[in-house]
Every structure is written in C-alpha cells, then in structure tokens.
C-alpha cells in the first residue's frame, strides 16, 4: 500500500503519452493493479462463473444422482422436456404474478414513504430507523412472521377479520400473503433509492412550477418523475430481477403448494428433492436466460443503466 505515493506520477505519464509502448512505471502500475484485483476476480470466476458453465454442461446430460451409471449426453433434450411441460409455464406464470404485483406495490408504497420521509421536518431519524427495520429482518423470519399471523392455529388475522377460510389454504390467499411479505421486506430498499433521487431535485423547480400554477399532482408527474427517473429505473430493475428469483418466502409459506410454485422452487425441487441434475440444471439455465432477458429489456427499452456512473 505504500506504493500509493509512486502511483500518481505513473498515472500521469500513462495517460499523457498514448504510445503503444508502456513506460516501466506504467507497466509496474498495471502489474500491481492486476495483483490487487486477482483474488477477487479469481474468486468470482471460480465460484460464480464456473458453476454456471458447469450447470450448462449438466443441462445437456442425462444426469440423475439416483442412477449415476446412466449418465449420457442428450443434447437439448432436457430443455425440450422442461419447455414442453405445463409445470414450467405454470411456474413462470406464478413467478410473474408475484414479480409484477410485488414490484408495482413496492413502487407505489416506496414512493409514498420516500415522499413522507422527504417532507418530514420532524422525527426524520426515527422514521428512517423504522423504515430500515424490514430491511434488517431475515427473509425467512419475515416469511414466518406473516405465515404465523395468517395461520388460524397461531395468528390473529383470521380471527380479527373473521375470514371463513384461512388465506394460506387457497391459491389467491397464498399469493396475497407471499406478495405482502415480499413487499414488506423490500419496500424500504426502493424507498431509500427513491429518497436519494428526490434529494437531487432542485427545490427551485417546484417553486417555479407552483408560481406558474401547477397542481401538486402536476408537479409530481412533470417534475419529480422525470428527474428521479434514473434512480427509479435502477430500483425497478434491481427489484424485478430479485423478485423473479423469489424463493425464501414461497419455501416458508407454501413450499409451492396451492399452485404457488415459482421457477426457483421448481429448480430446487428438481435438483435437490429429485436429484435430477440434468433437468434441474436446464431449469436453472432457463431462469438465468430469463434474468438476462429482463435485464436487457430494462437497459435497452427503458433506459435503466446501473453501469453508467
């Protein structure tokens, strides 16, 4: 780390002379940089990059741990099996229901919370503190809190609202509880990102618009929304990708019962309960492609770009 002092002049020469030949100093700097990055890069490649490649290879095999001797290369057959099964499409539908509903609700509630926090002249710290509480709660714990509240054997919700059927025994009810738990857990994240965006909007703009007679709603849609759009899109992108791989909440609430199985639960069932690595890996790789598609769609068409800094 002491080398930091020798670094600045080196950086100067490297950028000043754009010659193909590197000076000794620039070369030393480059070597040091790569040495410093190596552990992180190697780890990420080995523990995140390699398993994906390996999963892709597995997805082309007939690989069932219950019949280890029957392994063979089957090409795209696993993908055909998955994509022609109604289960996969049903689970994609379920996942989309949870993703769309929870992200939409999170945005609306997150925006309200951000506005409330932005306007709060008093008690800012306690408000921010309590908004962070759901963020700090472990997802499994949050899921249990909601499940135990809605379960008539332990909870209060069924009694309070005089429900005829416990929500977690029906499909719609299960979706409702799962989405509520997800929304509760992750809205703080959205609210904080949006609050960060709100802080960047110059106050003068609001004053000017107000003088010109713009209503509160007009000021929101014509000034606030366009200006916080970058923060908004990044928040939506992150949360959509996150919601699409929803696993913890569903596992705790229903384990996929009542037709609430999501694609991540399906992948888990194939890989771990059935030990069918071939089919399970095909599901995993398909989820991977879905995530890439979502990310591309967001960056291309909606202009969300977390990389632009």
């Amino acid at each position, binding site marked *: 780390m002491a080398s*930091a*002092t020798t670094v600045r002049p080196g*950086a100067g020469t490297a950028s000043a002379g754009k010659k193909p030949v590197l000076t000794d100093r620039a070369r030393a*700097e*480059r070597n040091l*940089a*790569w040495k*410093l*990055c190596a552990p992180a890069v190697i*780890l*990420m490649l080995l*523990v*995140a990059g*390699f*398993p994906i490649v*390996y999963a892709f290879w*597995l997805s082309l095999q007939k690989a069932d741990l219950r019949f280890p001797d029957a392994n063979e290369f089957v090409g795209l057959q696993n993908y055909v099996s998955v994509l022609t099964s109604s289960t996969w499409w049903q689970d994609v539908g379920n996942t989309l229901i949870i993703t769309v509903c929870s992200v939409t609700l999170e945005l609306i509630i997150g925006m*309200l919370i951000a506005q*409330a926090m932005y*306007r709060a*002249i008093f*008690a800012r*710290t306690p408000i921010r503190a309590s*908004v*962070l509480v*759901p*963020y*700090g*709660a*472990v*997802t*499994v714990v949050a899921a*249990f*809190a909601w499940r*135990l*509240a809605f*379960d*008539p054997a*332990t909870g209060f919700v069924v*009694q*309070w609202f005089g429900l005829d059927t416990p929500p977690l025994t029906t499909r719609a009810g299960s979706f409702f509880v799962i989405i509520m738990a997800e929304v*509760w857990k992750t809205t703080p*994240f959205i609210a*904080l990102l949006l609050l960060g965006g709100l802080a960047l909007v110059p106050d003068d703009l609001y004053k000017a618009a*107000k003088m010109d007679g713009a209503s509160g709603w007009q000021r929101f849609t014509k000034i606030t929304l366009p200006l916080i759009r*970058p*923060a908004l899109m990044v928040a939506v992108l*992150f949360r959509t*990708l996150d919601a699409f*791989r929803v*696993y913890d909440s569903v596992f705790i609430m229903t384990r996929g019962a009542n037709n609430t199985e999501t694609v*991540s639960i399906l*992948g*888990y069932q194939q*890989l*771990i309960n059935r030990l069918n690595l071939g089919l399970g890996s095909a599901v*995993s790789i398909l989820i991977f492609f879905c*995530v890439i598609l979502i990310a591309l769609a967001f960056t291309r068409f909606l202009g969300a770009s*977390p990389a632009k*800094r």
Partner: protein
Amino acid sequence: MNEDNTPRRKVLWTMAIIVVLVYALIPVIWIISLSLKTPETIGDGRFLPSDWTLHNYSDVFSTGFFTSALRNSIGIALIATLISLAFASMAAYAITRLEFRGKTAILAGSLAISMFPAISIVGGLFDLWRQIGLYDTWLGLILPYLSFSLPISIYILSAFFREIPWDLEKAAQMDGASPMQAFRRVILPLAMPGVFTAGILTFIGAWNDFLFANVLTSTDASRTAPVALAFFRGASQFTDPSGAIAAGAVVVTVPILIMVLIFQRRIVSGLTAGAVKG
C-alpha cells in the same frame, strides 16, 4: 422545506408517516409477541400475549439444533465478511487509484455477477462440492457468499474511495510522516466508513441467505440459523413448534436490527451508493 406546509397538509403527512411506522413495525412486534405467548394462549387469536413467558426461548435452545446453527451462522457470516472486505478493498483501491486496462471489464463483470440468480449456480455448486468434499462445510458456504458479496463490496468501496482526498497522503509525507504512517494515520481513517458500510451489508447478506444454506448443508456441522428455523420441528414430538420458531426468529433478527439501527446512516449510503449517483 416546501412552502406548501399548510396545517391540513401537515396533518395528512403526519398521518402518512404514522401509517408507515405501523406498517414497518407490526410484523416485528407480532413475532416478538408470539414468541412470548404460553402454549395455552398461542392459539387465542390475540395480537399481544395475555400471559407471557420466556418458555419458548428455553425451548428453542434446549436442542443443540438451533444453538449449533446460530454458531455456524455467526462464524460463516463473519469469515465471509472479513475475506470479502480484504479482497474487495484491494480491488477497489486498484480500480480507483491505478491506471490499467481491464478496469471497466472488472466493474461490468462484477455487476453482471451480482445479478446472477442464485438458483442458477447452486445446482452446479451442489454437484461440485459433493465431489471435492466441500458439501456441508463452512468453506462450502463462505465461497458462494464471497462471490455475491465481492461485486457489491467492490462497487461500494470504489464509490467511497473515489471521494477520499488522496493528496492528503502526500501532504502528510511532506510533513515528515513515513509512507506507512501516512497510510495508517491519514488514509485508513478516511477509508474506514466505506469499508465498514460494505462490511455491514456483506454480513447482513450472508446472515440472510437461505437458498445456498438450504442446498449446500445437511447437518449441524454447517447448517445456518435460517435453515434451522425452516426445519425446526419442536423440542419434542408433542409440542407445537410455532412458539419456539418465533423465539428463534427473534433471536436471529434482533442483533441484526440493533446493528441496522445503530449504523443506519452508513447502511443508507451503502445501499444508495452507485445506484443514485447517476
């Protein structure tokens, strides 16, 4: 700040804030309340316990099941955090301070990895770990946690390091400090908030994980607390585990909540670093 703080609006926003507080706090208050209920009153359908006891807490700790899981969770999350901070600081330092090709590739690659769905790599890891003996070990969980915390930490630390006035280091040396002293007395204190922020977020991420821990562990040797809760079946066959699960849930959550509340400023800056700066 806004000029339109008429009394009516003030009342409206105050009410909105109260709704927010209630919404954020109720599930946590509920799980604490449930953990204090007696077995006789757990099904009474009331929000607050009419009769309270610490019985559930002794219950959840009576089996080695939860205690060992708690130990695993603390150990694994701490080690993952320390390793991640060391490697991410090195990388972030190189990215912010040194001139080299591949900088953008590393940042873009990290960003891509942070978006990988966990389910896509957990199957491959499950099969690999089985073959090389990392299945159901601490290291077997620490490694995947690192692969997800490194990208985020590199991002956060780069954002923080960029704000450090590095010239101060030179100034200190001109005033007669050795390079080591300049680093330790000047740069380190300036870098610590960022490192600390990345550390908290990494620890919370590892502590929170359920999918990797669920797939890559099977025994007391490495099962973490969230998995133990998910599979807790009660101290004996004849007791309803709900009260004990609630107690375990409180034990798992409260330390993190206290940490989050103490370091809220840093967490907020960490969560929004990079995302908002546009």
